[in-house]
């Protein structure tokens, strides 16, 4: 029996013709994409392409000027307060710089939602906290520390622990591996895949990390020129002729490091 986390349909997020303007500046001019259940979905694009803005629109921090965003079957436009609160409990968000509450210890940061939203006993809460701290690869002593006492990488892990504590069906990650050392970054990738496999969660991540893109991302959208210029699996995306895709994926470095291996694998399979 597979873990059953039923959302009603296989599409977890659907963005349709999203238009975003900041004053005169147009960020998105008809962005459409969809994220399927149980996949790790990457949002890629150059700086200023509106990746973070798009993610903020998915998690109701911003509202698009036009277009329709549907998350876990809820239409975000004109969503009611109660519905929005319920929806917020279904997802976890990892911000780029952690955004841990600086006045609370790491353990309190992880505990706060359990305390506010569930009536789980204190002992069980402690267990969940310790388990989450362990899960993200931190030592339990970290629980007693304040965010200002942690390094950047530890803050990321602690923030992931916080994002996971409500057992979300959907996990948003904003540049999860940026600022981590390469080994830490690969462990983080592995952790995300493990979580996805075991908990059946869907992961949406903004990333520039080629290793993540080539190893763990199932499908992705490339944002450039205010549009999605390519969407799909790595194979599909690589077929795009768009200059950004050419530059990002088909330069000397990636050719040598990733694309050749991809070719080699194909030959083996045949």
């Amino acid at each position, binding site marked *: 029996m597979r873990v059953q986390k039923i959302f009603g349909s296989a599409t977890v997020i659907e963005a349709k013709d999203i238009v975003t303007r900041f004053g005169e500046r147009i960020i998105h001019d008809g962005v459409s994409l969809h994220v399927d259940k149980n996949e790790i979905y990457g949002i890629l694009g150059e700086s200023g392409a509106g990746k973070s803005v798009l993610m903020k629109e998915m998690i109701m921090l911003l509202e698009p000027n036009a277009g329709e965003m549907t998350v876990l079957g809820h239409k975000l436009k004109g969503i009611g307060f109660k519905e929005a609160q319920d929806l917020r409990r279904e997802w976890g968000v990892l911000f780029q710089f952690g955004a841990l509450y600086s006045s609370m210890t790491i353990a309190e940061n992880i505990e706060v939602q359990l305390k506010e939203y569930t009536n*789980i006993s204190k002992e069980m809460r402690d267990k969940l906290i310790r388990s989450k701290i362990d*899960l993200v690869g931190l030592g339990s002593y970290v629980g*007693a520390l304040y965010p200002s006492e942690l390094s950047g990488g530890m803050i990321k892990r602690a923030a992931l622990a916080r994002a996971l504590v409500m057992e979300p069906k959907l996990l948003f990650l904003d540049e999860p591996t940026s600022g981590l050392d390469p080994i830490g970054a690969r462990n983080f990738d592995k952790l995300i895949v493990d979580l996805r496999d075991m908990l059946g969660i869907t992961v949406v991540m903004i990333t520039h990390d080629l290793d993540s893109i080539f190893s763990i991302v199932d499908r992705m959208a490339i944002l450039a020129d205010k549009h999605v210029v390519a969407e799909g699996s790595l194979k599909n995306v690589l077929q795009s002729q768009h200059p950004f895709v050419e530059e990002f994926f088909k330069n000397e470095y990636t050719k040598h490091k990733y694309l050749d291996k991809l070719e080699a694998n194909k030959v083996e399979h045949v």
Partner: protein
Amino acid sequence: MNTTESIAYEDQKQYIELVSRGEWTLETVPQIEKVLQRLSFDKKIIWDVSEVKSFDSAGILLFIEYYESFKQSTTVEVIGYTKDQKEMYDLLKESTKGVIPQRKEGFLENLGKSALQLYNDFKDFVAFLGQLFVTLFHAVLKPKNIRFKEIVYHINHSGFNALVIIGLTSFLVGMVIAYQGSVQLAKFGADIFIVDTVSISMVRELGPMMTAIVIAGRSGSAYTAEIGAMKITEEIAAMQTMGFNPYYFLVLPRIFALVIAVPLLIFFSDLLGILGGMVASDMQLGISFSQFIDRLYEVLEVKHYILGMIKGPVFGFVIAAVGCFRGLQVSDNTESIGLHTTASVVNSIFLVIAFDALFSVIYTEFDV
């Protein structure tokens, strides 16, 4: 056996059959836990989990807890689990073994910490003043390097923009003194002395004091927050690596600005305070504006004005120095901006009052 509960058991003579069903998730864990707490068995347990429809790590952790605790007293056999459940069980089995150390702070420890903090703050402030005077010395040697543009900017922000609030508070204070004083003076028929009361107290004491308190609340706090925010975003570190001395670029202009602006604001405060007194005297005692001004010429000697004015640069310096010092003390979390801003305002108002007392003693000693 109840077939709808998330957890149920049946005594099968040789063994106990324990069955988990439905959802074992964060939402259901509290109820399941309540049931499990009441159970204890002395026979072998066969725990069937095949009817569990969905689970998450909270559910698995609950399972682990009671699986371990049942195992203490009897043998437990788990049947019907899936590969995913086993995987998560393996992952979480050891995960709760860690212990989060407690952060306990006793009364004495806190007292000691506060005392040490006070001592360290004082030491740091002395070091800050030393650094400040070294920078000031360099600035005086090479006045060309002084950031005049910055100074003007801060005079505008901390001085000019404060005119309205300082004018309003001083006007009201002048009125209040005139109202309060007039009741007492009228008893003796000494109505006209209201002019002495208002003008001398305003010019010598209340003008400088009101100005300093408003500026401490308005600009001292802003300086702390501005510099503190720059500290958190590592802008100050960036300046240092480029060879820009933060004292030169951030502290000195603010100090100069307040040393220049506060005396000017005190003058404005004196004017408005006396005006307030004049209006109140007219209403309360019927002393006309021209009577008031005539009397003002007689009683308000220039020395009172100068004695009040001397305090201006001192107050300005104290406020700017404390504001900048507290800003530079901010460490790398957002909470510390708030703490240091509070400390900045409290310290500078206290110091202003302390210096004011010192001035009173000196003035009395010199009999002026």
